[in-house]
Every structure is written in C-alpha cells, then in structure tokens.
C-alpha cells in the first residue's frame, strides 16, 4: 500500500512536470531559446544552495531561490552581450559554467556540514523523482494549471510575437512585455522541472518533446498538445523507472526516454522525416 502510494505520486509528478515542460518547451524551441533554457537551469543551482542556507528546506523557498538565481543569470547574459563584444554563445557559456561551479562549491560546503543528502539538495543535480511528495505534486499541479491558463488566454498574442515580433510591434502589441511574460513562464517551468530532471539535463526535457512533436504536426495548437503528451510520457516513464530502482537518477532516464521519442519522430514522421526524404528522393530519381 505504502509503496503503491509512493509510486503513484512519483508517476503523477513525473507526468505533470513532463507535460508542463513539453508545453512551454514548444515556445522555447520556436523562439530559438533552447540554449538559453540550458543556461537558466544551470544558473539556478547556486540559488537553491543559498536559499537552503538562509531558510532551510521548504521546497517553495528553494524554488524561489532557483528562480532568482536563474533570473540573475539571464540578466547577466544580456548585460554581457549588450555591453561587451562577447557574443551570446560565449556569454551563455561563461554564465552557465560559473553559476554551476558556484552552486557546486556551495553544495559541497553544505554537504560537509553533513545534511545535504538529508536536505535532498543532491536531487537538483541529476533529478530524483522518488522524493516527490503529495505537496510537491499539488504545487506542480496548481502552478502548471496557472501557466496553462495564462498561455491559453494570450494564445494569439504569444503566437504572433513568436512568429513575427516586428509585425506584432507594428500592430501595437507591447512585444517587450509579452516577451518577458513568456520568458518568465518558461523560467518557472524550468525551475519546477529541476527536481525531476536536474540542472544539467533539464534542457533535454524542455526541448526534446517539442522537437519530436514538430515532426508530426503542422500547427502550433497541435504541436503544443502533442509536445505536452510526449513530455508526459517521457516524464512518467523516467520517474517510474527510477522510482522502481532507487539507484538510478531520474533525469538521465527521462532524457533517454525523450531522446528515443525524438529519434523515432525524426526518422518516421510522415511527410517530413528522414525515411520520407529518402523515399521522396528515390521517387524523383526514378521519374527523371
């Protein structure tokens, strides 16, 4: 009974977080912000450590710390690219590696204090679904529902600024604010997902479902639906597998599951995939 309850929580949490990542990842991929997602997730680590040192292990506080650190990281990337001649890729590399190192240094301090694993901070590195409690699942559900509601409410505006921001601005939409809204939603999704996938691999959970979904469907509505579904599958599979075998970290399992979905999609998607491409070329070759 007890085991079942844990496994149900783990599966539910994994499914919800996977779906949310797939949902938001659609926008991250279409806006070309995949690697910014990677930077944000790495940058969150020192925030988690500092929040723990200041306020203890309340999960909400830890997430808040993660969010603040990720936000500082994003601002720093922006500041480096706007005030120096360092390009965005290098700026992201610098911030990503530095913040991650700061996080690791702080975690090793906490660890030597002797209560890092009790505090469950290790789970933020490679992800650990087994630690999911009913409160975590509730929090994910509520925040996820709020995010989904906001995106659906501003659906056409978000679609427009993603496809053609200049046209949106010329039509009087406050593109900067909408950008900020979308970036904030994505950041919240990333921070929530860290406990499942970990800071190193979160980017995979964010973008793999969206990339896989894009191969099968041709409209934004269908893409975001399918991406959420694929994310849900990957999240649940990874969470349950690692929940059943405590030795395996959740993040890597989820990423492998999601990557298999991507591989299948890239090869077999009708009208677009690699195999379709071969078939098309052979047909054209035969005709000419």
């Amino acid at each position: 009974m007890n085991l079942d309850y844990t496994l149900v929580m783990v599966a539910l949490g994994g499914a919800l977080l996977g779906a949310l990542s797939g949902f938001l990842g659609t926008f991250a991929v279409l806006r070309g912000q995949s690697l910014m997602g990677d930077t944000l997730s790495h940058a969150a680590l020192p925030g988690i450590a500092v929040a723990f040192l200041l306020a203890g292990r309340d999960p909400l506080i830890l997430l808040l710390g993660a969010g603040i650190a990720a936000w500082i990281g994003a601002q720093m990337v922006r500041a480096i690219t706007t005030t120096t001649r360092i390009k965005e890729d290098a700026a992201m590399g610098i911030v990503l590696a530095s913040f991650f190192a700061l996080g690791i240094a702080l975690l090793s301090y906490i660890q030597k204090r002797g209560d890092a694993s009790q505090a469950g901070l290790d789970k933020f590195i490679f992800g650990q679904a087994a630690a999911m409690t009913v409160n975590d699942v509730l929090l994910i559900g509520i925040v996820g529902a709020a995010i989904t509601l906001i995106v659906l409410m501003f659906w056409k505006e978000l679609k427009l600024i993603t496809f053609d921001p200049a046209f949106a601005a010329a039509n009087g939409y406050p593109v900067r604010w909408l950008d900020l809204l979308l970036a904030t939603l994505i950041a919240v999704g990333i921070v929530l997902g860290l406990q499942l996938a970990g800071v190193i691999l979160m980017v995979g959970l964010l973008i793999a479902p969206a990339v896989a979904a894009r191969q099968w469907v041709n409209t934004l509505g269908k893409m975001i639906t399918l991406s959420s579904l694929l994310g849900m599958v990957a999240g649940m599979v990874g969470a349950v597998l690692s929940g059943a075998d405590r030795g395996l970290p959740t993040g890597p399992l989820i990423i492998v599951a999601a990557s298999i979905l991507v591989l299948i999609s890239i090869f077999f998607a009708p009208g677009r995939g690699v195999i379709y491409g071969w078939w098309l070329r052979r047909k054209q070759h035969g005709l000419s």
Partner: protein
Amino acid sequence: MTPTISENLAHAALEINDLTVAYIQQGSQKPALWDVDLRVPEGVLMGIVGPNGAGKSTLIKASLELLPRAAGDVRFFGRSYHQARRQVGYVPQRGSVDWDFPTTVLDVVMMGLYGRMGWVRRPGKPDRARAFQALEQVGLADYADRQISRLSGGQQQRTFLARALVQDAQLYFMDEPFAAVDAVTERAIVELLRQLRQQGKTVIVVHHDLSTVSEYFDQVTLLNREIVASGPVNQVFTDQNLQKAYGGRLNFNVGVGQVGAA
C-alpha cells in the same frame, strides 16, 4: 527639398521631420539616418531606393517605432503613429521570420486582423472569410490550408501581402517585396499595387531594382542616409541624382543608364 507648407495644406499620408536614427556599434553611436525630411502625399505609390546600407529599412522601422529615434518626428495623416496605427499596414522582409513555424497560410493572413481584434479575443468565422478573400486577391486561395514551410519564396511574399491587405489600412509600408521572387509573383504584386492606388491608398515600397522604378512607381525617394531627392519619378529619377545617391558605384550599373535616358 522640404516641400513648403503652402504647397499642400491637407495632411500628407506620411510626414517625416528631421528624423535621425542612430545605431550603436561597439558602444559608439553611428547615424543610420541623418536629419531626414520626407513628405508622401496621399494616394501615391512611392519607391524608396538607395545603395546597400543607405537606411531604407531603417526609415520604415523608425517610422513604425520599431527602432528608437535619436531626434525628429513622424506623422501619419497628421497624427502620431500611436493614434494612426489602424490606418498603417506593414509588410516586413520575408527573411525576417522563421518559415518552418508550425502554422498554415490562412492562419498567417489572419494575423493581420489581430491588431483590431484586441486582447484575448479569438478570430471567428467572419475573420476567416475576410482572410480567405485576401488570399484570393493574391492568387493563393488554393493554398489556404498549406503549411507555410511548403511555400515557394514568391508564395511566401504573397502570403505576407495578403496579411497586409486584411489590415485594410490607408498607408502601407512594404520592405523589399520584390526581393528574389518569381515573375508570377512580381506581376501579382504590381497588379496589387495598382489596385491599392485606385482605392486611394498610399504605398511606400523599399525597392532594389532601379530598372523598374519608373514603371512601377509614381514617386521615388533616393536615400543614402540622407534624402538625396524625393518627388515625382520623372523629375527626381535623373542621372545626376542617382550619381549623388550611389556615388561611383553607379558607373558599374548598366540598367541605370537606360533608366536615366528614358
């Protein structure tokens, strides 16, 4: 070069006064447009030509407040852009968006209606009908449900034009609509421009091909960071002005010599 105020008391479709736009390069400001004065009367087709880097696209973007202005003022029908936005349509460069975006042709055209739809509201049946009608106008009715990544360059351009048409504006800005399009599309665009003029609309087109300027446009502006000349094609599009706008580069362009003689 600035028309005197007595020349036309009615408000011009577009009136640019002393517009300077700067871009920042390694922390230092460089002018992209330099103290530009321009007046476009209502109901004309105006071509904007000039060498690469002359600030043609910048002129449009700064007018639409997509870029910050260092100095100067832009008026549309005598009003600010904020007040006149519904009357202004915009066709960005085709290359400025990702054509692998998951959406259909009809959906892109409907984006032209978002501006007047207001927040949160979704497009409905009349909007679809309106978008479909615009697609018919540009000859893409059969492509309404096609994924935009499956369009040719010319079809992409016509999709953008259809999107501008549903905006039902009085003044249109088009950024290089003729760039790298097929002959069918080029004819379709020219036909569309003439229809718009017949309806009394004003169209301002950034253009590259000097040999077609006198055929397509009523008025032309020669731009090279400053206004070199602006006005009716037969008065302004002279060898002398072209020489001023393009400098030495003109000598290499055979097509221009023919235009100057015409």
